[in-house]
């Protein structure tokens, strides 16, 4: 049953067999040795990409630039695939972002005379925060040990820092939402049965709610961006390479979601800030995502291929469509609802696409080996340039490296 698995190295039948004389085989680093017998899975099928900006989403036949050869152990992946649950973890990223930005919107709406926007944003933040906690605990292999997250504090662990962001954020955001719920008479009645002292402190509830909302807002921004550091600080090539751009993707995506959802829920005369937040977020997300998708050579490729490529395309369509509807029809309620839903969907799809791209890059050894080989070559070139200025630039010819060493 488990006999199969040639990994990703399913060489096409016309590929090298490994049995031909070395004269016909491509040179691998390693003195002409190549894997003997059968398909040469140490050199998986040659993936090709089109030159220039147009990345092919599977149309590899239209190849113009052959990619670098690389070796691997039977096409097996080098790093391990993240064990995080899909779609729970990308949904957590989405909810954390939407809740984080909504909490900031809520706090500002409280003090600028927008009671309905404040109420809705507090509900979104509180619900998102609680769901985030549930999803995070659910993702643990030993959920009953969730509190072990809080037994140490380590700045080197984004998940440790994140636990210290999520814990106070979820406590404060859900407290603000709970105080807001007490505005409803049935809830107040029910609450009084459980906590008989509630009516006595009824006068203080708005103040408690506002301070909770402000406290949650203080953690709202970090709540939206720490998850980008969480995935960037891994050996997963397509997450690590854009490590200084992903936080901005997540920040923009979070604003699009938080702005979009609160805009959809709130009467248009109060929802002006949400509209502007959503549009600002879309601009930031698209700009940062463009760099992630195009600025990192072979490691950008997974963002365009397979499931991740489809998700990213859908995300872009939803985000751009949502932004257009928001800008043009956002001042009418149906437009606001349609735009908000599309923006939220775009944000969720973005997180799922980024997640999938990372998973795909972990599963194929080429994304681990080729960038590292390029790093070595660049280092050798730099060393060659210092010791021998004339040959250092020509390192990729393979002969220069012999000379410069």
């Amino acid at each position: 049953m488990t006999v199969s698995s040639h990994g990703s190295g399913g060489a096409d039948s016309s590929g090298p067999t490994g049995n031909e004389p070395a004269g016909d085989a491509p040179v691998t680093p390693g003195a002409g040795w190549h894997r003997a017998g059968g398909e040469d899975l140490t050199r998986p099928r040659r993936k090709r990409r089109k030159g220039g900006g147009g990345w092919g989403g599977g149309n590899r036949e239209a190849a113009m630039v052959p990619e670098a050869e690389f070796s691997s152990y039977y096409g097996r992946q080098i790093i391990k695939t993240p064990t995080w649950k899909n779609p729970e973890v990308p949904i957590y990223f989405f909810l954390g972002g939407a809740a984080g930005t909504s909490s900031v919107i809520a706090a500002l709406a409280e003090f600028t005379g927008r009671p309905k926007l404040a109420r809705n944003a507090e509900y979104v933040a509180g619900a998102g925060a609680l769901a985030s906690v549930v999803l995070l605990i659910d993702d643990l292999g030993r959920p009953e040990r969730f509190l072990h997250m809080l037994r140490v504090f380590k700045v080197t662990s984004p998940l440790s820092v994140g636990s210290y962001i999520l814990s106070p954020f979820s406590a404060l955001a859900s407290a603000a939402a709970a105080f807001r719920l007490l505005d409803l008479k049935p809830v107040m009645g029910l609450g009084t049965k459980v906590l008989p002292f509630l009516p006595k402190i009824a006068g203080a509830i708005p103040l408690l709610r506002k301070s909770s909302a402000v406290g949650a807002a203080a953690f709202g921004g970090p709540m939206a961006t720490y998850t980008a550091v969480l995935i960037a600080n891994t050996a997963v090539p397509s997450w690590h390479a854009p490590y200084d751009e992903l936080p901005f993707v997540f920040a923009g995506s979070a604003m699009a979601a938080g702005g979009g959802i609160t805009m959809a829920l709130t009467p248009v005369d109060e929802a002006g800030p949400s509209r502007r937040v959503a549009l600002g977020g879309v601009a930031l997300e698209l700009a940062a995502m463009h760099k992630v998708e195009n600025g990192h050579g072979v490691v950008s490729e997974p963002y365009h291929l397979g499931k991740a490529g489809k998700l990213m395309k859908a995300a872009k369509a939803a985000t751009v469509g949502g932004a257009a509807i928001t800008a043009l029809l956002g001042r009418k309620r149906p437009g606001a609802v349609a735009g908000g839903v599309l923006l939220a969907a775009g944000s969720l799809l973005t997180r799922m696409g980024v997640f999938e791209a990372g998973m795909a890059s972990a599963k194929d050894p080429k994304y681990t080996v080729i960038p590292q080989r390029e790093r070595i070559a660049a280092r050798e070139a730099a060393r060659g340039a210092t010791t021998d200025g004339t040959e250092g630039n020509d390192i990729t010819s393979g002969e220069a490296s012999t000379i410069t060493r």
Partner: protein
Amino acid sequence: MTAVSSASPGLGKGSAGTGAENRLFGPLPDVQGEAGYGEDHPARVGFFTDTSVCIGCKACEVACKEWNTLPMDDSHGKRDAMGMSGMSYDNTGMLGANSWRHVAFIEQSRAVDLPMPTIGRPGDDRRDSGLPVNPISPQADGPLNAQTSVLNAEALSEFDPQTSQSGGDKQIRWLMSSDVCKHCTHAGCLDVCPTGALFRTEFGTVVVQGDICNGCGYCVPACPYGVIDKREDDGRVFKCTMCYDRLTDGLQPACATACPTQSIQFGDLDELQARADARLATLKGQGVESARLYGRDENDGVGGNSAFFLLLDEPEVYGLPPDPIVTTRDLPAMWKAAATGAAMIVGIIGSAFLGRRRS
């Protein structure tokens, strides 16, 4: 009780002499001291795995499984499943939660053209054997490729214990290498562990505490070598401990004890490094130009390894990353970007509220 973890190099005080440098990457002469152990801690220990004398017997794998009572798994880490990898004599497949030693097996062949007299640049017969010089191929090892010369090929078939001649124009060689957790100087798994379950031992190794791990799985993608993994039905992560229980009782790790050819050598790290340097010089002297040490260089991306290797081909041929880095090296830049992003959220939302109310 929340405590600032001693396993957090960013916050550790660091003992005298180590200073504040290289907490996240780079050479670190005293890893145990950096982790908070006192002056009297034992020497850093390690494995030197000399793959040139590995015979692929897998005694190390068996000894490891026996001693650590690891469950059976197939070549994809699926527990209690029996299955052939279908690719070679290697049915262990990879390191994982249930396999803490993995003997890689690679059969290679190459054409040699022994009778032909060659004229060419000394040390390079690629044009003579008809091999195209591929300009794209990352020829990072430079002169190591010189072993393709016919003279060296003869030397190799005579001296390289894993090379044999099959027929007049074709050589076959078997590469075998017992892979293991590298116990990095700057261990990504240890850096990112949010519970403190992973810790640095007094021997400089990195070990998971099973009673603390809550299975968050962050260490799994953090390892640049793909060593640590989650045991699915257990929920926690597992990896080589370098037999921490045996070390504390003055014994050698099970795999090194079982190795019949001394391919796996255990000892104090400085001593192993000296031994490895000598072995490399011997092999080079015998004409095995492709020999190289892996994980020995303390200036590499992880600050060097406690478990390092002598390889006969490129690292990626064995399934090892050619230039691993500890991703925490870039963490300060990531936190900066995240803080800037968070500030932008507050700034953009704040300015969105500045506009006049419109209906």
